[in-house]
């Protein structure tokens, strides 16, 4: 598994903070591990909370109409890529 990039690390910190993941350390979220389901076990309320945190931090409105969003929420790596492509 590859290491987190700097952007991924900052995003992992945002995830841990926004979702109060007390038993997860930002460096433990591997870029290719699933965030939902089998991975961190996040649920739909987390998705909502995470979308708000991303909007506030990176000025991106997350919408499910955008087909890239579902894919972006798959892993830390994909989410980081999505944010870098869509941020103002």
């Amino acid at each position, binding site marked *: 598994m590859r290491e987190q990039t700097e952007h991924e690390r900052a995003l992992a910190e945002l995830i841990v903070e926004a979702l109060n993941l*007390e*038993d997860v*350390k930002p460096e433990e979220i591997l870029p290719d591990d699933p965030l939902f389901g089998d991975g*961190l076990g996040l649920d739909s309320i987390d998705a*909502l909370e995470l*979308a708000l945190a991303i909007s506030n931090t990176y000025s991106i409105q997350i919408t499910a109409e955008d087909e890239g969003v579902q894919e972006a929420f798959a892993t830390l790596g994909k989410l980081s890529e999505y944010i870098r492509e869509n941020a103002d």
Partner: protein
Amino acid sequence: MPFNRLEATLELIGREFPGSYRLEASDDLFERLDGEPGEDDAPPEDIPLDQLCAIAFTSGSTGTPTHHEKFWRTLVVSTASSARLLDVPRDDTIHLVATIPSQHMWGLETAILFPMLENAAISDKAPFYPADIVSALAELPEPRGLVSSPVHLDALMRSGLEVPSLDRIYSATAPISPEQARKLEDHFSARLIEAFGCSETGIISSRETAREDLWLVSDSLRIEARNDDFIVTGDHLPEPVMLPDTIEMQGDHHFRWLGRHQDMVKIGGKRESLSDLNLQLAAIDGVDDGVIFMPDSGSRHPAALVVSRQLSARAVRRELGRHVDAVFLPRPIFIVDELPRQETGKIARKALLAAYSDLLRDSARKSQ
């Protein structure tokens, strides 16, 4: 209406209830859960009152789902009462957007039955993120209504997005505080009406939380106290239903909600018993001992202390996630050497909470 959408749950329902269908609006999926070929007859235009229309599943304390059959008679009567409780306009069609899934009773009653039986129309969008809710509302003419939950409403408010004018906001699945209700009403300039109910009965009561403390009971239901329990009956209900909540009746038509029964957890509109969660935890290979509990009634997730020589917190969460809906997955999970059990083997809540807060403090210190 499965109590969660895990494949294991759908397989179980398919086996136990031959003839069930799997419907998914998003991809036009329509197939029989038991794998038999389906009938493609169009549904009859007049639905007989004794037609079985839906089965609502709630997760049972033994691991097998409990099921509640919904006949058309029940749904017709309860929808009319619910429309009065929620003050659905009579002379003007209200245009609704629902942010909650329609395989829940709350969604079925509002997003499906209101448009079928009452003066309401529903958007075919099932928006989730705040930006999606705004665009779904913008497509509708006035008067508009939003059918939602406390979590979605709070996220929409915090998003800071400009929301099209709303007439009514309907919320259920978890209680809203009077302060939050007033904030939401101010923010959206709309009337917020809260509904209270359960899968067994549908909507039982409503209140305008910003102005009312007591819940008004539906005109087709009665609530009676029996010992420490509260029983809901109605001529249209197949059988009396025991509330999984503690309430205090104020006259015949109003009550004050005091809380849920000790063993019940309700998160994201879903209900689960702690004993069932603990059975699932104990069944995991490699878990030597463990306990799942709610640190306090308002917690967003249960927490867990687990004794295991082989498994990490992450592995425990992954194993649990195969059988338990993600909203009930404990957070945090702490791997510990032993549980604070008394000599009798019982765990006192006070000792458990003390051990838990020590662990939280240690982990906060380590991460600094």
